[in-house]
C-alpha cells in the first residue's frame, strides 16, 4: 500500500487525542474495581481461616491487609500502589500479585491473540465466499454452519473439540501448557479454535453483509472500469471498505473474547489469567482479583485504542 502522505498528520493528532481520552477511562476503572471488590460478600480473612475462624484471628488478618482502615484511605493507598506496580500480595499463594499476573496474563494474551487471528482467517475468506455467492448453496451452508456455532455455548464447543480432536483422534493435547514456544502454540491451538469459533461467526456475519453493501458501490464499478486485477479490487477496494464496520465490531467484542477465554481455560486446564480469576473468586483472594480486573480492563481499553487507530487508518474520514 502507498504511503499516506499528508494524510498521516491528522492520523497522528487523532492517535494523540485518543490516548489522552484514555485517562478518564483508567480513573474510572480504578474506582470501579476498588468498589466492586469491597462489595463482594464475605471477607478474605474468613475465607482463609475457613470453619476455624475466630473473631480475633479475623481482625488480625484484616489489619495486616490494611482492610481495617477507612475506605477513602484504602483507596488512596490503592491508587498509589497500582501506579508503583505494587498490587499487593496474594492471600492464597503468598506471592506478589504482580508476579502472579505476569506469569498468567501472557498465556491468556496468547490464547486470545491466536483466537482472534484464527477467527479472522476463518471469517474473511468465508465472508467473501458467502457474499459473492449470496443466496446460493455455498452461502446457505456457510451461514447455517455459523448459525449453529453461534448458538452453542463456549464450554460445549470446548468439550466437543476436546473429545474429538484431543481424546479420540489424539491430534492435540487435552490440556495444559507446553514449555517451548512451539509447544505452547500446539497446546493452545484447540482452546484458541474453540474461542475463535463463535467469534468468527459474529465477524463473518457482519463482514458478509458489509461486503454485500460495498460490492455494488460505484467506486468498485469504477475500479473494474479501470481494469484493475480482481485481487486488487477485492482487497484494496472492497475488503478495506467492508472492514471499517467489522473492525468496530471486533473492538466491541474483545471483552466478550476475554470472557470466553476464562471459560476456555477452565475447560482445557490452561494455566492462564482466566483460571486464576476463577480460583481467586472462589478463594476470595481480593488482591489478585483486584489486580486482574485492573489488568484486564486496561488491556480491553488498549484494544479499543488499537481498533480505533486501525479504523482511522482504514478510513481517513475518521481522523479529521
Amino acid at each position, binding site marked *: 500500500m502507498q504511503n499516506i502522505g*499528508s*494524510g498521516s498528520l491528522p492520523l497522528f493528532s487523532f492517535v494523540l487525542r485518543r490516548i489522552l481520552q484514555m485517562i478518564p477511562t483508567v480513573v474510572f476503572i480504578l474506582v470501579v474495581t476498588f468498589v466492586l471488590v469491597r462489595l463482594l460478600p464475605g471477607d478474605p480473612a474468613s475465607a482463609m481461616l475457613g470453619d476455624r475462624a475466630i473473631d480475633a484471628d479475623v481482625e488480625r488478618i484484616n489489619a495486616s491487609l490494611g482492610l481495617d482502615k477507612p475506605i477513602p484511605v484504602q483507596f488512596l493507598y490503592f491508587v498509589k500502589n497500582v501506579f508503583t506496580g505494587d498490587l499487593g500480595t496474594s492471600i492464597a499463594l503468598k506471592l506478589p500479585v504482580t508476579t502472579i499476573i505476569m506469569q498468567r496474563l501472557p498465556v491468556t494474551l496468547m490464547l486470545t491473540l491466536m483466537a482472534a487471528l484464527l477467527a479472522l482467517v476463518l471469517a474473511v475468506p468465508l465472508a467473501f465466499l458467502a457474499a459473492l455467492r449470496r443466496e446460493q448453496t455455498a452461502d446457505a451452508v456457510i451461514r447455517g454452519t455459523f448459525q449453529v456455532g453461534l448458538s452453542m455455548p463456549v464450554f460445549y464447543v470446548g468439550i466437543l473439540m476436546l473429545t474429538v480432536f484431543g481424546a479420540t483422534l489424539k491430534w492435540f493435547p487435552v490440556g495444559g501448557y507446553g514449555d517451548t514456544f512451539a509447544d505452547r502454540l500446539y497446546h493452545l491451538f484447540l482452546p484458541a479454535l474453540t474461542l475463535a469459533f463463535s467469534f468468527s461467526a459474529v465477524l463473518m456475519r457482519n463482514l458478509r453483509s458489509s461486503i454485500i453493501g460495498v460490492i455494488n458501490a460505484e*467506486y468498485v*464499478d469504477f475500479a473494474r472500469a479501470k481494469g484493475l*486485477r480482481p485481487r486488487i479490487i477485492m482487497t484494496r477496494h472492497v475488503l478495506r471498505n467492508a472492514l471499517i464496520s467489522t473492525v468496530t465490531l471486533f473492538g466491541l467484542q474483545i471483552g466478550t473474547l476475554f470472557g470466553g477465554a476464562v471459560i476456555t481455560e477452565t475447560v482445557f486446564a490452561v494455566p492462564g489469567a482466566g483460571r486464576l480469576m476463577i480460583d481467586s473468586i472462589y478463594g476470595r483472594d481480593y488482591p489478585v482479583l483486584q489486580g486482574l480486573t485492573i489488568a484486564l480492563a486496561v488491556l480491553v481499553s488498549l484494544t479499543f485504542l488499537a481498533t480505533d487507530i486501525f479504523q482511522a487508518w482504514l478510513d481517513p474520514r475518521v481522523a479529521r
Partner: protein
Amino acid sequence: MSVAIDTGLGLTVRGLTALFNTPRGMALAVADVDLDVAPGEMVGLVGESGSGKSVTLRSIMGLIQTPGHVTGKVEWGGRDLVAMPAEELRRIRGSEIAMIFQEPMTALNPVLPVGLQLEENLVAHTRLNARERRARALQLMNTVGIPAAERRLNEYPHQFSGGMRQRAMIAIALACSPKLLLADEPTTALDVTIQDQILKLLLDLRDRLAMSVVLVTHDLGVIAGTCDRMAVMYAGRIVEMGTVIDVFRQPRHPYTRGLLGSVPRAGAVRTMLSSIEGTPPSLTDLPAGCAFHPRCSFATDICRQERPPLLSLGNDRKAACFHHDRVAAAEAIL
C-alpha cells in the same frame, strides 16, 4: 463515416440489449442498440433521465452484473467484448477503453488517496516505475486543471469539491491514453470555463491520438460544439441518429423535436434539453407499439399497434418513426 465496420477499427455495437431482473419484472433498460464510433469520432448520446444512456455505456464496458444481463455484440478492434474472457477484457478496460462515470461524488473510493487511485491504473496497464507514475499523475492533474497537484495527489476524495472530484475522475480515465472514451456527463459539476477547458482537452486528444468519444450530456450546446454525430435514446432504444448538423436542423423524430424544442438555432449557446410533456414509460411495462405514443402529438393508430423500426433515411441518418416525413415537414414550417 462508418469506416468502423469495414476495417475493424473503432467501436461497432450491434443489438446491444440490457435486461434487469427487478421485483416488478424484467426491465428492458437497453434494447437492440446499434452504434458505430470511428477512430477520432465524437458521438453524442442524449435522452431523458432513465432512457438508458448510462446502462448503454456500462454494457459496452462489461460492467453490468446480476441482476442485469447483457446480450449483443460489442466489437472493438475485431474482438467481441461481450463474449471475451474476463482477463482479456480487463486488459482492455482502463487502457484502450476508459469510462468517466456520471457521479463524481461516489465513483472515487473514499478511503484511498486520489493519487493512488490514479496510479493504480498505470500499475495495471503500464510498466512505469513509481517515479514515472508520479510524474504522469502530476502531468494529468495539471492537464485537467487541478491546482497544487503535488499536495492534492496525497489527499482523499472527501477533501475535494465536486468539481475537483470530477476532474480527478477525468484524469484517472485518461491515465493510459485510451483509444475510446465513454464519457457519462463528464462536465456537469464544472463551471463554464473549466467545462470548456475539459472539452478542448477531449477534442485535442481526439485530434492527436485519434481517440474516439461517446459523450453523454444534457447540454445540447456541448453536443453542437464538440460532436460529429449524435444519437437520441428513448426508453432504452435509439430513436434517431445522424450528424449533429442534420439532426439539429431537421429532427425526424417527434421526441428529438421535443428535446431540441427551445434551442436557439444560431450559435452554440449552453442550452439544456427541454422537457417534454408526460412521463417516460415504465421499463417493465412498455406501451404497445411505439413506446413514445402516449406522449406523441403525431401518433396515429399504427403507432399504437406496431413498433416503428429504426430505418435508414440516407445520408447516415436514421429514425424510428412511422411519420418521420410529417415530423420533418412540421419542422420546416417553424
